[in-house]
């Protein structure tokens, strides 16, 4: 079986060297990084199976929790926290990013290794079950892969769901479907439009272009889009 690649983000050299040693002894390949900038640069060229994040990353302005949010937005890579923090406010913020696990230092080797192994296996399972949205069309249920959706347009009592191949018509409201779609992938640009972020070809403050179609951007939603675009420009 191929060795799994783990990216270890830890600012402290001795702790990083130790954790790396434990991971290597248990059959993993280890990539290393000591802050958010190095991590984002590394993720441009590498796709590890799992990322282990320390929360305190030296004097840098970005901590492990901010970094986890960026990783979630831009890459579909599972991560877990390995940190000495156990204060409730920090733990709550960390848990809000939905890590695979939260391990506190000093850690027992077996706890780290089992958490790593479980995280990798669980994410393998999830890949097989890609996210779908259940829509009804002409009396039939259809499980539509959300990856295939370019954008969604509201049309009176119906939604028009545009994919590369065809347009599905479904009796949903914009609000209902937005709740079922992954927030990391879809953004509402207008009262009547939801767009798959990964399909945006061009954008201005007034429009985004998806599949050669001009989709309006209204002022009420511009902040959501800006956050995404800013991050994309920074890291890609």
């Amino acid at each position, binding site marked *: 079986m191929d060795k799994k690649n783990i990216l270890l983000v830890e*600012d*402290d*050299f*001795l*702790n*990083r*060297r*130790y*954790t790396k*040693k*434990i991971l290597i002894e248990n059959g993993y390949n280890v990539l290393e990084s*000591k802050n958010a900038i190095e991590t984002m640069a590394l993720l441009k060229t590498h796709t590890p199976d799992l990322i282990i994040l320390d929360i*305190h990353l*030296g*004097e840098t302005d970005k901590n492990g929790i901010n970094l986890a949010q960026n990783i979630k937005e831009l890459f579909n890579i599972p991560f877990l926290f390995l940190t*000495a*923090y*156990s*204060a409730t406010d920090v733990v709550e913020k960390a848990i809000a990013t939905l890590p695979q696990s939260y391990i*506190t*230092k*000093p*850690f027992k080797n077996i706890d780290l290794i089992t958490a790593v192994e479980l995280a990798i296996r669980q994410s393998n399972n999830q890949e097989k079950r890609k996210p779908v949205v259940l829509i009804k069309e002409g009396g039939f249920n259809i499980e539509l892969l959300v990856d295939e959706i370019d954008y969604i347009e509201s049309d009176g009592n119906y939604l028009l769901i545009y994919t590369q191949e065809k347009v599905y018509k479904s009796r949903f409201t914009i609000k209902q479907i937005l709740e079922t779609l992954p927030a990391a992938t879809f953004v509402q640009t207008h009262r009547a439009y939801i767009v798959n972020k990964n399909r945006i070809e061009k954008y201005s403050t007034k429009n985004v272009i998806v599949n050669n179609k001009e989709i309006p951007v209204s002022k009420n939603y511009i902040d959501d889009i800006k956050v995404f675009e800013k991050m994309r420009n920074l890291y890609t």
Partner: protein
Amino acid sequence: MLLSELQHRVKNNLQHVISILEIQKESVDFNNIDELIRGNQNRIHSMALLHKKLNISENVNEVDLPKYISELSELVKDSYDNHTKKIQLNVKCEIDKIALEKALPIGLIIVELVSNSMKYAFLSRSIGIINILLSTNHDTTENTFYYTDNGEGFDFNAIVNKGLGIEIIKGLISQLDGKYETSNSKGFEFMIYFK
């Protein structure tokens, strides 16, 4: 200081101790038990002293660097000093305060360098001299860590497989986002530049 912050630091330090002990395991073949224990005691002392020199009264994250490095280097020197020859340790630190995050790697680097000098540098010298100087360039705000001994010197860049000291020093310099230079022209000379 908040209790939660204190707990965080204690747990972090315990992790450090575990890390140091495990890493040291790799060098058991090259060292006797006395040396292994002494090395680890010194590394743990470097952390304990760090907290003594931390300014907790004003709730800031700053360390009294002159006191920290003079006491630490003295302590490491004494742990090896068998008083069969005179060892002169000169420490000068022009940086009054520094963040805990920087002081920790600096302390560990001092432990490694002083240990190394005490173990190997003065074998053929009648007097041993160690100089440590920390200064700041006020125009560039760059800090310089300058270390010399009057021993025979050694090639820092040729990886020595013993005791892991050099690998640890290099890793700690990277943690400081620093650069280093080394020379053997008059004893062992070592410079680290960091912000």
